Every structure is written in structure tokens, then in C-alpha cells.
């Protein structure tokens, strides 16, 4: 099996991101991504680098970047950093409001 036979694409990318979120303590089944962006860089395995933000069930928001660690030979979310005061930072973003609805089931007040 060679790299070009590995199934890649957005489903694979999101699966990898989901597992890495779990590793960061964010329940991938109770969170929502927003402002996600493909970054035009192909990582090992044919997966495209991507960036974005994740809203967790605890209301915290982290920014992340799907990249490849040469030292660990593994995918990683790096940089990974919390955004302070996310409601203030993203309140005007339609994608954040939709993420909020997806996580909490209602529009943000």
C-alpha cells in the first residue's frame, strides 16, 4: 500500500481532527468547529492541513491547526491555544453562532 492508495479527503481530515480533539480533552461528539479553513498544504498520508476553532461543551474556544509532527511522526493540533472571552471575540460571526446552536441547542442570548 502506498500513500496514493490511502483514502484521503475531508472525511479523513475531520476524523483525524476529532481524535486529536479528544486527546486535548474536548469531546468531539459534543463540540462544533467553526471558521475551518483548508490550508493548501498536503501532509503525509495525503491529508490537507487545516485550521480553525472549536467550541466545546464547557463554552471554551480553542484555535487549532492540523499539522504533522516530524519528531513524533504523527498528526497534531499545533498551534493549540485557548481564545479568551470567545463570546466577545466571535459574537459577530455567523459561523460561531451556528456552532453555539449546534453545541447548546439554541441561539446565543
Amino acid at each position, binding site marked *: 500500500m502506498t500513500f496514493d492508495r490511502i483514502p484521503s479527503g475531508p472525511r479523513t481530515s475531520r476524523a*483525524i481532527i*476529532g*481524535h486529536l480533539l479528544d486527546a486535548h480533552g474536548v469531546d*468531539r461528539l459534543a463540540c462544533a468547529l467553526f471558521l475551518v479553513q*483548508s*490550508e493548501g498544504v498536503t501532509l503525509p498520508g495525503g491529508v490537507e492541513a487545516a485550521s480553525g476553532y472549536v467550541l466545546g461543551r464547557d463554552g471554551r474556544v480553542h484555535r487549532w491547526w492540523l499539522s504533522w509532527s516530524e519528531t513524533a511522526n504523527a498528526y497534531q493540533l499545533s498551534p493549540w491555544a485557548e481564545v479568551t472571552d470567545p463570546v466577545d471575540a466571535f459574537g459577530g460571526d455567523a459561523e460561531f453562532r451556528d456552532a453555539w446552536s449546534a453545541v447548546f441547542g439554541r441561539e446565543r442570548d
Partner: protein
Amino acid sequence: MPPVSLLRCLFALVLVCLGGACSRAEPGPPVAPVSASPASTVTGSPSVDVTRIARDATWAPGSLVDHFGKHGNEGPWADAGAYDRSARDTIRTGRDFTYIDRTANVRRRGFYDASGNRFTSVTEDLRRITTHFRPDTGERSVVLLPESTYRR
């Protein structure tokens, strides 16, 4: 014999694919769907005020620094400020189009400057700059984006 790093990569991919398939029909966390705004449609890319977008669109918190850190070595950008100016200049001078981002599965508005091979993307509501980089395969890359309205 493939190198160890290759084998580890393949193993990691198998694991994530199996894990995703077991946990849910659509692997990975949901990307919040965004309703289409009146400013754009699926089939077309109505003209937009590029001067206003280039002036008013902002990077989300931390995003400019992260993007410069990852893409900064692709162009003659000495610092994040120069990178940001290039992103905005691409909006002003590039050809605008819409497409579906592969990972997000949401519509984005793209701007491509063929002479400098520069690409900038903004959200559909035109509020946020989401990336800026020089595509490896040039103009071909924006033509081949899903549902790209870019025309040579």
C-alpha cells in the same frame, strides 16, 4: 522496506478511520452549517465591494500570527504585517470567486492574484480573512476547488 515513519503514518490513518467509522456515520466533530447569505449564491459570485472587504475584514483572534507562522516562508513577507498587507492586496487586485472549502464544507469567497500566485479566502459574510498563501500548483489549484466559480 518502507521507512518506520511511513508505517506509523499508515497505522495512524487506519486507526482514525476505524475510530471515526465506529463512533458516528460522519467522522469527526460537526462543522457548524451556515445558512447562505443573500450576498452570494451557490451558482454565482455576485460582485462585491472589494475595497471595503480589504479594509474591514479581520483575522479571528490569533489567526494572523498562526497563518504567518505556517505560510510566512512562502512569500517575501518580513513579518505578520507584511503578510496581512499581502492578503488584503490580493483581495483588492485578485479575481474573486466562490468555492466550497474541502474541510469545512462551507462556502467561502476566494481571491486569486494570478500574477503573484497569491490566494486569500474570506468567510461568506465577508467579515473574516480565513487564510492567505501561495498555492503549490498556482491557478490550477483554485480552478479545481469544489464548486469553484473561478474562470481563467
